[in-house]
């Protein structure tokens, strides 16, 4: 699949493209306001506490351009080449933030009032509903500049709305590809799970070719009372790409949210994940797996914010580091004044597979209420010699044993997704990665 070189045009430091005429006024002004604040906010510095241990040298601001329309649009072939679910309730496909095939949603659900549309369409057809939920959260973990950039330059994304009491038994899927050298995309994800509803969303971000690219994504999740939502994202951009991804969720009373993030691609990744527990009995589970190799650098910042009593959160991040790769994990649990009976856990485990990999862990707690149970743990260590010996003594050769143990290590987080078909997709992607590493 050869791509004709499209000359890049608008740098992401240039003023963004005008919003289309038919978009609502509030959205147009939100864009222009965001562009103003993008220019006002300082670039992150390494001396900022929120960027401690980050290697900002790897993040280039220059020579990146708004992705142009790509000539690659063979949806069937693109889907066939990526691992995804066998069955879904609906799908939307994007290349360079442009829809490449008619979005699908099972009629059964559209009849029940489920909305699953490209954001550009939802802004026109469901403007009020989008406005109520669009970027209502402030950036808390250091990337305010990129939040503004995203808001000012975003072209598309998806809006998923599940009305009260509706259950989707099968997940919906969203695919993003990026193509073209130095292309930047700004995919936006907005998910609203109405009271008592339940749904599952899977989103995949990948590169078509081995090119420099930049992905600045924002995902906002609103889990209303009693809702149950599972959201999963995989990132497999090219090894030359950079990605900044900000996930914010509000979990209301008795609602349950589970998020899972898999990072495989990119030279440099910054993930910020905030979960606010805003109603009594809310539960949030935050899971992530990453397998960096070569000189990849993954920087993960998280916040579990307990604002009400009787809420619980549980975070598990697992990293297996190869070669010269580096990870930074900074996690914070905040228990606000009145949030008694909070149950909060946070675990980050690093498996160091080479003598030159580097793992930084900063697990944090800020507790302002008593009657709480909070704990965190962080470990960094190599594969256990005993486990390796056990497998070897049963005839498994060392490289295979290493691979098995690493696979088992990350699988713990995958198992917690609790949905077989999604776990299969993730394990498939991990299997490809480990085979590639094993074959070297």
């Amino acid at each position, binding site marked *: 699949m050869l791509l004709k070189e499209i000359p890049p045009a608008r740098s992401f430091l240039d003023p963004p493209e005008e919003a289309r005429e038919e978009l609502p006024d509030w959205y147009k002004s939100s864009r222009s306001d965001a562009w103003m604040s993008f220019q006002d906010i300082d670039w992150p510095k390494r*001396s900022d*506490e929120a960027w*401690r*241990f980050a290697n900002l040298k790897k993040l280039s601001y220059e020579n990146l351009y708004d992705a142009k329309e790509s000539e690659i649009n063979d949806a069937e072939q693109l889907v066939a080449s990526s691992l995804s679910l066998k069955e879904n309730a609906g799908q939307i496909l994007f290349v360079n933030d442009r829809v490449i095939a008619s979005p699908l949603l099972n009629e059964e659900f559209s009849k029940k009032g489920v909305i699953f549309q490209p954001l550009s369409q939802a802004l026109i057809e469901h403007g009020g509903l989008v406005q109520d939920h669009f970027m209502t959260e402030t950036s808390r973990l250091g990337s305010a500049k990129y939040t503004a950039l995203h808001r000012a330059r975003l072209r598309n994304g998806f809006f998923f709305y599940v009305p009260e009491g509706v259950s989707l038994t099968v997940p919906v899927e969203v695919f993003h590809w990026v193509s073209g050298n130095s292309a930047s995309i700004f995919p936006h994800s907005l998910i609203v799970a109405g009271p008592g509803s339940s749904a599952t969303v899977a989103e995949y971000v990948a590169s078509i070719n081995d090119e420099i690219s930049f992905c600045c994504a924002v995902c906002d999740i609103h889990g209303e009372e009693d809702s149950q939502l599972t959201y999963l994202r995989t990132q497999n951009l090219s090894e030359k790409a950079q990605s900044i991804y900000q996930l914010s969720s509000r979990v209301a009373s008795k609602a349950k949210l589970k998020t899972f993030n898999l990072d495989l691609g990119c030279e440099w990744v910054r993930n910020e994940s905030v979960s606010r527990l805003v109603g009594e009995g809310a539960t949030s589970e935050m899971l992530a797996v990453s397998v960096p190799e070569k000189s990849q650098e993954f920087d993960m910042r998280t916040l579990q914010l307990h604002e009400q009593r009787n809420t619980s959160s549980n975070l598990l991040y697992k990293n297996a580091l190869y070669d010269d790769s580096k990870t930074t994990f900074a996690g914070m649990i905040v228990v606000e*004044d009145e949030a*008694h009976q909070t149950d909060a856990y946070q675990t980050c485990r*690093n498996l*160091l*597979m*080479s*003598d*030159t*990999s*580097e*793992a*930084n*862990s*900063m*697990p*944090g*707690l*800020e*507790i*302002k*209420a*008593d*009657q*709480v*149970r*909070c*704990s*965190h*743990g*962080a*470990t*960094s*260590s*190599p*594969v256990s010699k005993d486990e390796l010996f056990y497998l070897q003594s049963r005839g498994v050769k060392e490289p295979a044993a290493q691979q098995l143990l690493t696979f088992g290590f990350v699988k713990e987080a995958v198992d917690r997704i609790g949905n077989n078909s999604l776990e299969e997709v993730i394990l498939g992607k991990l299997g490809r990665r480990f085979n590639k590493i094993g074959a070297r």
Partner: protein
Amino acid sequence: MSTDSNSGNMIEIDREKANFHYDVEYKHDAGMGLSEDTIDYISNVKGEDKWITDFRKKALSVFHEKKMPTHWASEDLNSINFDEIRYYLSAGEAPKRSWDDVPNEMKETFERLGIPEKERKFLAGVEAQFDSEAAYSNIKDAVAEQGVIFVNSSEGLAEHADIFRKWFGKVIPTGDNKFSALNSAVFSGGSFIYVPPGVKVKHPLQAYFRINAEQFGQFERTLIIVDEGAELTYMEGCTAPKFETTTLHSAVVELVAMKDAKIQYITVQNWSANVFNLVTKRGLAHENAEVRWIDCNIGSRLTMKYPGVVMKGEGARGEVISIALANDGQHQDTGAKMIHAADNTTSNVVSKSISVGEGRSTYRGQVHIPKHLKGCKNNTECDALLINSKSRTDTYPAITVRGNKHSTQHEASVSQVSEEQIFYMKQRGLSEAEAMSLSVNGFVNDLVREFPMEYSVELKRLIELEMEGSVG
């Protein structure tokens, strides 16, 4: 136990014992504020060599250049007014070798705090600092005969420059942080200790720091060098009367453990609740040496103290054992710093904190294992106990591990005294306060046992005592 009605009264430390002061006539007073003149004054009183005066002046400019670390630390630091502090106060006499020669007010102060009694009982040597200078300094003959040097910082630099100058300011450089620079500029008092190769000092050496004056800053400087195969236990205690104005205590403590040496450094800090206690403490451990910090913080308004160990030689070991108790109006911001710089080095951090009433305790930690080392291990445990509904605790560790030949683990937990436990004990006839006291003592018990006998008894008594009669 989230009952607001008795907030803050469950554990109230006995501070009244140390809350007294005497009017002392100071012969030397550098006056309010800090400038090059202050330094000239101090150097002149002490009759210091030029290199020391130059060292001080350089440090002063570093202090002015450095910003307050409020981008990560408490904003409360901004309430220190450096112009309304007196940087040097002394009665102008050399420390006495006998308590009988110590001026009356000072002697009474230390008598009331029980220092001479403790000395007789179980110490190998004592230095008692009153404001800027030591009033008393004595080491038992048997220990001195072994070649152990135990003097104050001025005497150390003047009389034993060959030993101390080599390491002075090397473990903690002037520019390490704003307060180490301040100390380097105006330091006075503190202990300089040298233990010759192979000498194992049986009984602890002790320093006692007393602040008597109002609007004053105490800046003692301690340097301890324990030579090959030698061992030393050092203890320090500190108190001050409670004034309305702020008092500043900013020490620098450097430890050097040569090959196979062992140093145990014990602190029981019980400053009054108007003292800013901003201390830099670090030890350098050579091959197979061990540096242990045992740290107990009960007093002060804001304590910022993160004892560190740089493990420079193969097989070196570092340890920090820390207990903090934060009551209303107090912030105990403590932690540990473990820098692994050689193969097969191991470190251990155990920190327990108790927050009472509106007290806040914070743990900050740093563990660093650089590239191309092997066999380094770190274990960190932080447990926090919250007594009341407004009590607060934070944990901010940072762990860097490079390479696959090491292992680190960090764990922290936050809990409270369980209702069931209290109920169980009340059922068996204990009052609520007794039950609470027993629970809290149980929480810190395994750490209290790390303190020398006399201290652990006193610590347990302190916690017990404070809870008696505090619940109606």
